C-alpha cells in the first residue's frame, strides 16, 4: 500500500509565481514528515521536517510546509519561485518516533518558466 502520495507528477510554474506541492499520507497516527529536493545530478537535500508542535514549518531556500491532520496532508509552499527551484521534490514519512525508515512518495517534478 502506498504510504505517501504526491498527486502531481509534474508542475510548471512561472518565475516569481507561488508554488504549492501536495503530499498526502495514509496512516492513522501522525507520522514524522519530510520534504526533500533533488536537483539534476545532485543528491537529495532535506528542505524541512515536521515532528510535532507548530503545524507550519519553515525550511531552507524559502520553503514552508503545513501539516493538516484532518486532511492527512503536508503540503509544501513557496511564495515566489526562482529558476533555481526547478527540481524534483519528494515527500517522505517515518512511522515511529526515533525510527529511521524513510518512505518516499513518487515525487513531483517542478519546471520553472521565465
Amino acid at each position, binding site marked *: 500500500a502506498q504510504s505517501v502520495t504526491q498527486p502531481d507528477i509534474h508542475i510548471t510554474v512561472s518565475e516569481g509565481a507561488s508554488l504549492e506541492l501536495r503530499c498526502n499520507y495514509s496512516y492513522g497516527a501522525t507520522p514524522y514528515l519530510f520534504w526533500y529536493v533533488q536537483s539534476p545530478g545532485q543528491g537529495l537535500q532535506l528542505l524541512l521536517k515536521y515532528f510535532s508542535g507548530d503545524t507550519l514549518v519553515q525550511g531552507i531556500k524559502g520553503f514552508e510546509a503545513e501539516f493538516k491532520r484532518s486532511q492527512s496532508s503536508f503540503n509544501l509552499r513557496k511564495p515566489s519561485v526562482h529558476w533555481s527551484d526547478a527540481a524534483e521534490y519528494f515527500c517522505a514519512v517515518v512511522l515511529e518516533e526515533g525510527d*529511521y525508515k524513510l518512505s*518516499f512518495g513518487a515525487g513531483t517534478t517542478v519546471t520553472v518558466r521565465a
Partner: protein
Amino acid sequence: EAGVVQSPRYKIIEKKQPVAFWCNPISGHNTLYWYLQNLGQGPELLIRYENEEAVDDSQLPKDRFSAERLKGVDSTLKIQPAELGDSAVYLCASSLSPSSYNEQFFGPGTRLTVL
C-alpha cells in the same frame, strides 16, 4: 565539510555482467544506507548499516545483490549478475545515528544502465 561521495556516477554494462558501486559517507557518520531509485519513483531502502553491521537488509535481493562495509566507513554494493530490471539510480546516504531526528545526507547516486 565533504558530503557523501559515490562512484562511479554512471555505469553502463551488459546483462549478466557484475557491477559494483562505492560509497564514502560523511566523516563520523555511523549509519549508512543504500537506496534504489527507479525512474519516476522515490528512493527505496535496500540496506542499512550501523558501523560495519548490516542491521536491516530485508529489502535487499540477496540472490544477486550483496553489500559490505568492512571497516565501518566506506561501503560497496554489488550486483552479480545484473539484469535489465536493475537499471536505476543507486543512492547512498549517511547519518550520525539511525534516529529519524538525525538528517540523512544523500550522495549524488550512481546511474546504472543494463543493456
